C-alpha cells in the first residue's frame, strides 16, 4: 500500500466512524418527545450479573406490557430505559447518571449487585428519584429514596441452616463468598446464625468478585472437612465456577447456595445437582397467580424465555408496586410516591408483597433443591417470614 492509499483508507474509515456517531446521536436528541412514565433499569448486562440480568429485563418487559395494555399509569404509557451497569460501582454510577440526568427517568427499578447499588445511591440522592431495589441482598441498605422487595439474610439463611442441622445432622460448616457487600453481609449473618444454633463454622473464605479460580479455597475446604458448606458469591460466573470446581474436585458435603437463582441453576444442571437454595420465588410455586405469570411469560417470550427466578420476579412485582404507588399518590413526583410505596401491596407470583417493614417486605420463603435436570424441587415452605430490623431510622 502506498502512503497515499493508506491515508485514504484511513480517512474513509474515519468518515465511516463519523457517520455512525451522527446516526447514534439521532435517538439521543429525539428522546424527550412524548409524555410517558419512564422506568430506568440499570442492571448487570455485562460482568458478574450478566447471567441473570436478561431475565430481569424480561420480567420488567412483561409488567410494562401488561400495564400499558390495561391503560398505563394515570393514563400515561410506561416506557423502559435499560442500561448496563457492568455489575460494579463505577459502571452503575455512569448508568444512573445517564438514566437520571440524560434520559430523565421517573424511577429506577432494578436488580443489581450490592456494589452497583451502593455506587448508585449517591447519584440517586442527587437526582432525587424513587429507587426500588429488587435483588435478594445482605440487608440494611437504607436511603431516603430506596425500597427493596427482595429477600434479606433474616429470610434466607434460616431455612437452609436448619435443614442441614436437622436432616444432615451437620455440626461444622464452611462458608465461601465473594468479597463484597453481599458476600460478606450474607455470610456474617449466616455465621452468627449457625453459632446461635450451636453449630461451628470451621472456615470462611472470600475471593474478589471477578475471581474464577477457587483451587486454593477448595483445598482448604478439603482439609477442613466440614459437614456442610454454604456459598454466597456474586451471581453468575463466580457462582458457577465455584460450583463446578467444587463438584469436579469430588467434594461430597451438602451445599447450600445463598446466591444461586433458578435460572442459573438450570444452566449449570448436573453441576448443581443436589444444591439447596432458599428463595422467595420458584417456578414450581403452586398458586394461580404464579401459573398466570408463568403462562404470560411463555406467551410473550416463547423460545427466548429465560427461566424466571428469584432475582427477576421481584422486578415484575416492583413495577406493579410502583404503579400502585403512583396511582395512590396521583403523581410521579418523588416525595409522595416514596411515601405511598410503603402503603401499597401487590398480589403476584410470589404472593402478596408489601414493603411495609422498614422499607423491606415480609415474604413467603421456599427451601428448594436443584435436580439433575436443573429444575428445582420445593422441599419446604415458610409463610410470611419477617425481614427483621432493617432500617429503623426510616
Amino acid at each position: 500500500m502506498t502512503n497515499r492509499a493508506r491515508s485514504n483508507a484511513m480517512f474513509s474509515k474515519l468518515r465511516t466512524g463519523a457517520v455512525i456517531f451522527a446516526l447514534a446521536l439521532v435517538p439521543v436528541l429525539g428522546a424527550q418527545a412524548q409524555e410517558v412514565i419512564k422506568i430506568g433499569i440499570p442492571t448487570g448486562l455485562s460482568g458478574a450479573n450478566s447471567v441473570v440480568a436478561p431475565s430481569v429485563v424480561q420480567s420488567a418487559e412483561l409488567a410494562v406490557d401488561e400495564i400499558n395494555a390495561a391503560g398505563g399509569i394515570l393514563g400515561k404509557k410506561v416506557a423502559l430505559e435499560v442500561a448496563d451497569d457492568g455489575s460494579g460501582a463505577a459502571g452503575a454510577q455512569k448508568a444512573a447518571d445517564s438514566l437520571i440526568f440524560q434520559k430523565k427517568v421517573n424511577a429506577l427499578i432494578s436488580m443489581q449487585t450490592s456494589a452497583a447499588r451502593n455506587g448508585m445511591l449517591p447519584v440517586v440522592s442527587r437526582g432525587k428519584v424513587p429507587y426500588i431495589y429488587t435483588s435478594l441482598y445482605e440487608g440494611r441498605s437504607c436511603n431516603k429514596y430506596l425500597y427493596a422487595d427482595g429477600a434479606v439474610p433474616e429470610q434466607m439463611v434460616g431455612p437452609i441452616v436448619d435443614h442441614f442441622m436437622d436432616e444432615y445432622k451437620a455440626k461444622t460448616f464452611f462458608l465461601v463468598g465473594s468479597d463484597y457487600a453481599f458476600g460478606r453481609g450474607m455470610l456474617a449473618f449466616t455465621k452468627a446464625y449457625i453459632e446461635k444454633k450451636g453449630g461451628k463454622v470451621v472456615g470462611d473464605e472470600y475471593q474478589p468478585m471477578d475471581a474464577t479460580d477457587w483451587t486454593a479455597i477448595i483445598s482448604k475446604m478439603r482439609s477442613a472437612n466440614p459437614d456442610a458448606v454454604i456459598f454466597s458469591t456474586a451471581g453468575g460466573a463466580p457462582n458457577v465456577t465455584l460450583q463446578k470446581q467444587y463438584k469436579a474436585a469430588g467434594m461430597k458435603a451438602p451445599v447450600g447456595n445463598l446466591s444461586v437463582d433458578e435460572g442459573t441453576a438450570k444452566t449449570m444442571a448436573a453441576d448443581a445437582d443436589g444444591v439447596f437454595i432458599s428463595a422467595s420465588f420458584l417456578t414450581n410455586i403452586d398458586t394461580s397467580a404464579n401459573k398466570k405469570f408463568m403462562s404470560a411469560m411463555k406467551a410473550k417470550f416463547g423460545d427466548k424465555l429465560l427461566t424466571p427466578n428469584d432475582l427477576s420476579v421481584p422486578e415484575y412485582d416492583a413495577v406493579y408496586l410502583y404503579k400502585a404507588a403512583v396511582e395512590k399518590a396521583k403523581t410521579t413526583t418523588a416525595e409522595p410516591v416514596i411515601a405511598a410505596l410503603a402503603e401499597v401491596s401487590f398480589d403476584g407470583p410470589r404472593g402478596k408483597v408489601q414493603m411495609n417493614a422498614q422499607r423491606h417486605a415480609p415474604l413467603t420463603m421456599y427451601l428448594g433443591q436443584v435436580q439433575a435436570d436443573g429444575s428445582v424441587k420445593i422441599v419446604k415452605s415458610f409463610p410470611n417470614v419477617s425481614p427483621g430490623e432493617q432500617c429503623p431510622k426510616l
Partner: protein
Amino acid sequence: MADLTTTPATLPRRAFSGRLVPAGSIAGLCIVAVVAGPYFLDSYTVNILVRSFLYAATALTVDILWGYAGILTFGQAAFFGIGAYAAGITFTYMDFSPQTAVLALLAGLAVSAVVAWITGWISFFHRASPLYVAIVTLALPIILVQVLYSGGTFTGSSSGLVGYNTFDLSVEAWFTICGIGLVVLTTAAWFFVNSDFGRLLIAIRENEQRCTYLGINAPRVKILLMVVMAMIASVAGYAYAGYTVVVAPEIGSFVFGTELVMWVALGGRGTLIGPVLGTIAIDVISAYLSGNLPYVWKLIIGSIFVLVIVALPQGIVPVLKTGLRRLWSAATRRDAAPCVAVPALIEAPEGRRAGTGSDAPALNVADLACSYGSLKVLEGVAFKALGSELLGIIGPNGAGKTTLMRCLSDGYERTGGTVAVFGHAIARTPPQGVVGLGIGRSFQTTSLFETLTVAESLRLARYRLDGTRMLSHAPTLALPDSARRVITATGLDRQLAIECRHLSHGMKRALELAMVLALEPSVLLLDEPTAGLTKPERTLIGSILVDLVQREGLCTLIIEHDLDFVREISTRIIVLHQGKVLLDGSVAEVVGSELVRTIYAGGAHQELAP
C-alpha cells in the same frame, strides 16, 4: 579554516517567548469557557464533564511521562486510585470536615509520592530496559487492586466505599473548580515541557545513554518526575472521590491505566492539548453513545486506536494541527513559524575543571579486563596518561578499542582491574558519576538528540554544572572557551536554533565535540571523531584538537582508523590487538614497528616491501 556550514533545509524552531502570548490567551479563553459552561450545557453534560476533566488531568500526567519523557506507564491509574481511596477511607472512618479533607489530601499525596518513588527506584536503574518500567507500572495497579480487595470491609473490597460525607458543592461548582484546575494544570504543564527542563526530558527520551554521559543523572530525573506526576494524579483521584462519593477498585485498575494510555495515544502523545481534548471528547462521547451502541462504540474506539498506533503514531491532534496550520499559511500567505532569538553565548566561569592541581596522572589504568561470557574483549590493559597528552588508540577491528572507552567511562563495564582519574578510582560508578570525575566521552556513531536544537543540546551539556530552569528558558548560555571555539570555528554559532537532525554529518560531529567540551572535562575520550568526514573536515577537527591539548592541557584519548590522521596529531600511540596492549610508544616508534605493520597488513609470514 574550512567551514562546515551547510544551508539548513528547514527554518529554525519557534522560540518560547514568541508563543507565550497566544498560550496565555488560549488559557484565558478556556477559563472563561469553564466558568460559563454550566449556563449553556445541560446538567447531564456538566455532570459528565466534571469526571472527564479529572480523567483529562490524569491523562496529562501520562502524556508528560510517556509523550515527553518516554516512560510508557500504565500506573497512573494506581495513583488516581490512591488519591481517591485516601479520601474515601478518611471520610468514611473519620467523617468529613475541613481538617479531614486536608488530611485526606495530604495522605493521598504522601502515599502516592512514596509509592511512586519506590516504583521509580525499581524501574529506573542504570541500563534498565525501557520495557521494564512498562512492566512495573503494569503491575502497580494490579497490586493496588489486590490490596484493596484484601482490605476486606475496611476498603470495601469489590464494592468499594460509598455514601460518605463529602464537600457540599453543587455539580456546577465542581465543574468550575475542576475546569479551572485542568486549565491551570495544562498551562503549567505547557510551560514546564517548553522550559529548559522540558528539553531535558525530551533528551532523556531520545537518548538516555547520551544524557548519562553528559553527567545527567537520568534515573533520578525520571524518579522525580514520576513522583510529581503521581501526586498530580492523586489529587485528581481525590477530587473524583469527593465528587462521585464512591471509590471502587475499578478506578485504580489496570484497565483504567490502559485507557489513559489509549486516550493519550489517540489525542497525540507529547502534545499536552491532544491528550486533554482526546480524553474529554472520548469520555463525553462514550457517555452519550455507550447507552445506545455499547459494543459498537467500544469497537470503534478500539479500531481507531489500533489504526492510530499503526498509521498515525503521533495521534490525531497533531494531524489536525498540521492541517490547520497549512490552511492558515495558505490563507494568510505567511509562514506560521517566524524566526526567533536564541540564547546569547557567554563565557563560563573558569576553574571548575576536575583534577586541577592534582599530582596523580590524569588517567591510570591497571590490569583492566572486560569479558562477555567466555569472550575476553580486554585483558590486562594497563597504561597511564597525563595532561597535555594526545594519545592515539589504534588497532584492527575487534581489538577492543571501543570497549576500552566504555570501561573508562562507565564503572559497570569492566570485569576486572582498576581505572583511576586523578587518583580517584571510578569503582562501580555509573557514567553520570564518572563525568563528575572529569571524563568526557564522545561516541563512535553520532549520538545526539534529533529534535533538540543546537543551543538546547549545548545547554544540556551544561546541566550538570549550571542546573536548569523548570518553567522558562534562560536567556544566556554559558560555555567554556574550548567549546565556544569549536562552535565558532565550524559555524555552529550561526545555527543555534536549528534542530540537530537537520545538521550535516560534519556539523553533528562538531556539535558532539562541543558538547563534550562544554562538560569542562579534564580527560577527553573521543571515539572516531572524524568518522565519515571529508578530508577538509578532518583537518579542521584535527587542528582544533591539537590546539585544545596544547592550550588547555587536556588529556585526550582518541580512537582512529585513519593512521595518517593519528600520526599527524598524536603525541603518543597505543596499539591494541586482540584485547591486549601490543605497543605503547611515541608516534615514530609505532609507525616504524614491523609488528604493527604486519598486524595491519596481515601478511605476517611474508617479507614486506618498505
